[in-house]
């Protein structure tokens, strides 16, 4: 079923008939920096798709649709959380299916100079985790503001996670607040290129222990190759991880007008 879902998402994303310019600048804003969510929402009727692959050949797909210009519905797979079954061994990322709903306001909606604001809720609905019934729920509040060539993002997440032990007992992480932040910079000399950097907290599952949150810092570059598509080259570092265990990944984003 997941193969079918992946291929369908891929076919949708590659449909050339849907490729139209989204903005005059040809640079649609994405609902995340690298790991941290941003306060940008997909335009009304727009569909944003993303595919990613890292150097360990772990990948992910995502799709987000704008709703009325004030909300966004998303569906994605990601490998952000890590699991440790026999702790001491290398912790490996596992695949999660996740749905999200975000509602917010654009920049300058109420007051001049007001940042964009988004309140979002994301919840996992499927997992390849070795732990039974592993799940993560997250609420985030993010503010984003463009300042010339720079776009700043700041906010906080409230994250809860849990899984069921072999004994049947539920092991949970109580809702925990963590900050998040991000930076996007489009140098004037390179109008297609955006430097990215962010910091966020994601869940980590250790067998026999309550889930915990660990920071993930990322940096990289987004290149607007086409008016409706960009590519990203990213490096991501995690807490308690040596430099040699960092992750290098590429992403392809495509913005489609599905039903505007």
């Amino acid at each position: 079923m997941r193969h079918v879902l992946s291929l369908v998402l891929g076919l949708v994303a590659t449909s050339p008939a849907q490729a139209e310019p989204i903005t005059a600048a040809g640079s649609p804003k994405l609902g995340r920096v690298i790991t941290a969510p941003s306060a940008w929402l997909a335009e009304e009727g727009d569909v944003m798709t993303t595919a990613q692959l890292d150097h360990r050949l772990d990948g992910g797909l995502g799709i987000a649709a704008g709703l009325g210009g004030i909300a966004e519905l998303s569906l994605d797979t990601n490998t952000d959380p890590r699991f440790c079954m026999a702790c001491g061994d290398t912790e490996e990322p596992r695949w999660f299916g996740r749905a999200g709903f975000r509602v917010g306001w654009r920049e300058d909606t109420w007051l001049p100079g007001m940042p964009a604001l988004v309140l979002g809720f994301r919840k996992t609905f499927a997992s390849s985790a070795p732990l039974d019934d592993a799940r993560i729920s997250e609420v985030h509040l993010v503010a984003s503001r463009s300042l010339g060539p720079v776009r700043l993002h700041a906010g906080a997440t409230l994250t809860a996670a849990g899984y069921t032990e072999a004994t049947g007992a539920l092991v949970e992480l109580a809702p925990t607040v963590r900050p998040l932040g991000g930076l996007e910079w489009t140098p004037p000399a390179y109008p297609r290129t955006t430097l990215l950097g962010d910091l966020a907290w994601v869940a980590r599952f250790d067998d026999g222990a309550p889930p915990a949150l660990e920071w993930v810092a990322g940096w990289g570059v987004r290149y607007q190759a086409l008016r409706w598509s960009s590519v990203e080259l990213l490096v991501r570092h995690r807490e308690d991880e040596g430099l040699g265990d960092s992750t290098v990944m590429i992403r392809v984003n495509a913005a489609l007008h599905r039903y505007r």
Partner: protein
Amino acid sequence: MTDGRFPRTAALVLLASTGLAHAEEPAAVPPEAATDAPTVRRRTSTLAEIYRGPFRSSRLFAMPTADVVGAYVMTVSGEGSLLQQPGALTSAGVLAIGFGDIAQLEYRHTSAISVEGVTAPVPAVGVQLAIPLPRRPGIPAFGVAFRLGVPRDEQIDAFELEEKVTDLYLVARWRGGAAGWLTLHGGTRVSSASLTVTDAMGLAIGTVEKRLVLPTGGLELQMNDEAKLVAEAGLAPRFMWMPGADPAIGYGLLARLGLRWSVLPSVIFDGSIGYQQEVGTVEPPAGRGGIVQWDIRLGAEVFVPWGALACRATGAFCD
């Protein structure tokens, strides 16, 4: 999927086909960025015009520079040494793909071929960025390079050693204003090195990890339109272990002196002599007089302006 992981095939198909495969013109690029474009991508360009460049290399011999190969350009580099290890041909290859104007993705592969067989460690990837500060004469350019380590196995008696180094380079490049023939490179290499020793039974008998902050630098002397002398020196992690002792990680000097010769605008030939005995091996240091352990290394870097070629052939990726 059976191991619970993401379906890789689907992701690969999507990455290969999404977006970039379509021949749609991108947004117009302002002139200041266009001047940085390595090659002009026009449907009417001839192959001679396409391969005339200009092309930029993103490295000296080993250390990264504050440049990247550029958008829609790919480079294939290879080098080999018959003398670094007695009786073995050591070689290394790098595939660098320009990821926009200021970034590149690298794929590295090293191997050693000897009479005992072929040792081909796991390939690794790297990311390199040119910090997009305004370019003015006399102002240095800056860059960042991240290179994931390649595990390397070494056999000593019945023990097996696995060595791994991951590097984060912060580099600067200064091109002399009046002395345009001189380019200086300097930087810091943050190395995360690990050494694991296992015995014949496969049991780990010692592991050491260390993070080192090491200087690196180099210079280029433009000798004529096509050739420049290149010197490069820096410290690099050095692994130390002897049976009965704990493994340790120190550092040693790595230095190369040679030339880079643009045989054609799209082909660069490298030749150098180098000192790197105390680096990346548990062999004892040779000392200053130990030139018998220096090596001669030859290599080449070939630029492939795939964007311009695709533009000429199909109309995709044109300026």
